[in-house]
């Protein structure tokens, strides 16, 4: 660079150019630091996602001798008429509604209790974390043993209390299968919802309640007029997270029900199609369908949140 040509007028331009060079160097360094992470994300998420979409238009079979053929939307046509998949979608939706509802109500009660002042509050907080700390598969096995039709504690207790007159095979009979799976999920995940709601409760200023009592508002009115409106953001976050999680449920169904066709989740059906049957092409179409169903929920929630904000 020829510095002799620099005049006082040109100086700002030069400085700007120098700063852009620094800026450029910074940008390059930033992308270099990001590169490994982005590469991994592309390799384990985006490439496979593209591959899934591609495979859903083929008849790819795992370990097939004949080469894979492009069959267009044939898989999707089959999927529309696939009553087993339709049942799985319905089962998953029922599971989602029931678990999210119960987890919300129970989580709110627990959060309110833990948020109020009493001796042993710290212990209580620790206790409610226990189910959350237990891995899902292990929690499901613990309940599986409690559900046991002969030696299980649930049957034993209910028969002894004369609520039931004979033992029930909770996970085996279709009428109670979904309920017993939902109960495990509710037990395991309510603490997470309670924690999110508790975080929301703790930022509500106490003066609001004081002012309300001075004005003569009852506890009940305070709950509906102060707590609930101010808790709204936390509630929405909890509901979104839980709904998305419940829609892709796999572990509890697998442990308690195996791969039964009468009560299976979408994820169970898909995993079975891909890994057990080796029908990769059709499984990919199922994957895309699951992805779209979850996507619809995300879009609905996000627009709902946006409307809330305005």
């Amino acid at each position: 660079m020829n510095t002799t040509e620099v005049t006082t007028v040109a100086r700002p331009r030069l400085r700007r150019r120098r700063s852009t060079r620094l800026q450029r160097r910074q940008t390059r360094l930033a992308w270099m630091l990001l590169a490994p992470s982005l590469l991994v994300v592309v390799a384990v998420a985006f490439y496979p996602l593209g591959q899934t979409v591609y495979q859903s238009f083929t008849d790819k079979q795992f370990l097939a001798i004949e080469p894979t053929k492009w069959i267009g939307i044939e898989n999707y046509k089959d999927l529309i008429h696939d009553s087993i998949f339709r049942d799985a979608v319905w089962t998953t939706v029922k599971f989602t509604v029931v678990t999210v509802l119960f987890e919300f109500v129970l989580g709110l009660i627990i959060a309110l209790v833990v948020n109020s002042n009493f001796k042993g509050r710290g212990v209580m907080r620790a206790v409610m974390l226990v189910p959350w700390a237990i891995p899902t598969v292990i929690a499901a096995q613990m309940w599986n043993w409690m559900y046991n039709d002969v030696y299980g504690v649930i049957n034993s207790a209910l028969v002894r209390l004369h609520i039931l007159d004979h033992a029930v095979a909770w996970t085996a009979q279709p009428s109670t299968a979904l309920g017993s799976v939902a109960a495990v999920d509710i037990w395991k995940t309510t603490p997470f919802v309670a924690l999110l709601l508790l975080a929301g409760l703790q930022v509500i200023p106490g003066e609001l309640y004081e002012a309300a009592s001075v004005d003569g508002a009852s506890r009940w009115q305070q709950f509906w007029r102060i707590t609930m409106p101010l808790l709204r953001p936390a509630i929405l976050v909890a509901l979104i997270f839980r709904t998305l999680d419940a829609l892709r449920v796999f572990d509890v169904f697998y442990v308690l029900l195996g791969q039964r066709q009468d009560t299976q989740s979408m994820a169970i059906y898909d995993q079975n199609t891909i890994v057990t049957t080796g029908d990769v092409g059709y499984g990919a179409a199922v994957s895309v369908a699951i992805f779209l169903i979850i996507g619809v929920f995300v879009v609905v929630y996000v627009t709902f949140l946006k409307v809330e904000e305005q």
Partner: protein
Amino acid sequence: VSTVAERTTRPGAGAASRVRRLRRSPFGRFARRLPFYLVIALIFFYALFPFYWALRSAFTPDADLFKTPVQYIPAHPTLHQFREVLSSHFFLRALLNSTIVAGGVTLLALVLGSLAAFALGRFRFRGRSATLYLMLSMTTFPQIAILGALYTMINGLRVHLFGLSFQLPHLYNTLWSLVLTYMIFTLPLTVWVLTSFMRGLPRDLEEAAYIDGATPLQVFYRVLLPLIAPGLVTTGLLAFIAAWNEFLYAVSFEETPNNFTVPVAMVNFVGKSGSTFQVPWGQLMAATIVVTVPLIVLTLLLQRRILAGLTAGAVKG
């Protein structure tokens, strides 16, 4: 509560003041809060009973376990089930595999994630917030959606990309398949949480180091990394637990018991005798206790930090 009102009404208000006095006595206060304590007791029972039941089953000998009526407290407590499970090659192997996988995943996610967080938290450049949102959206990525593609990829898929064509390594039934695929849910979380930690640091220290002639990488590992150590512990722990608990990929990508992780082993549990005729519930519950107690202790010890990490990952943005 209303002391002024009480004082003025005291003369002549016999029954009302007696009720009030009773209500303010220790007994009255207890009676009024009774429903509240009942709710607390109920929550205690609900949260802890399944864990208690696993504990009681782990300490009950098989002879009592498979007998009716069910014993609520073990009549002949024994350590036999624990001894069996802790000397079973099948279970110990699963513990080792899970430790390798979760440890490897955590290490890799922390190294890559902290570098990315350095860029996203301390630099200004175009595409920064887009990258952040990409990472955030990745945290809700449904893993089932790419199961089939990953399944074919780890089975040595032939990749055609930008004119290049190469065969992927055969990773089916190896622990590598899990270490790599678990990046999907651990890396975005690590990047996101560490970025929020990086952003919270003051500029001064970093600037002082730059003036002293430090390179950006030196600033990164001499100045910034020690400062976000608490963040590294939190995210590391969240990543470790997530990897330790993962089941869908583990059950799909591992075939032989030698490569089972703990969750897969817990589902296809084989007792010490090796018999698959009956589920050895006593040993299984002992294994449950062995696996969950460290997790529970860890969660309780670090509950504040975990909460901070979770809310940073969940509520912000």
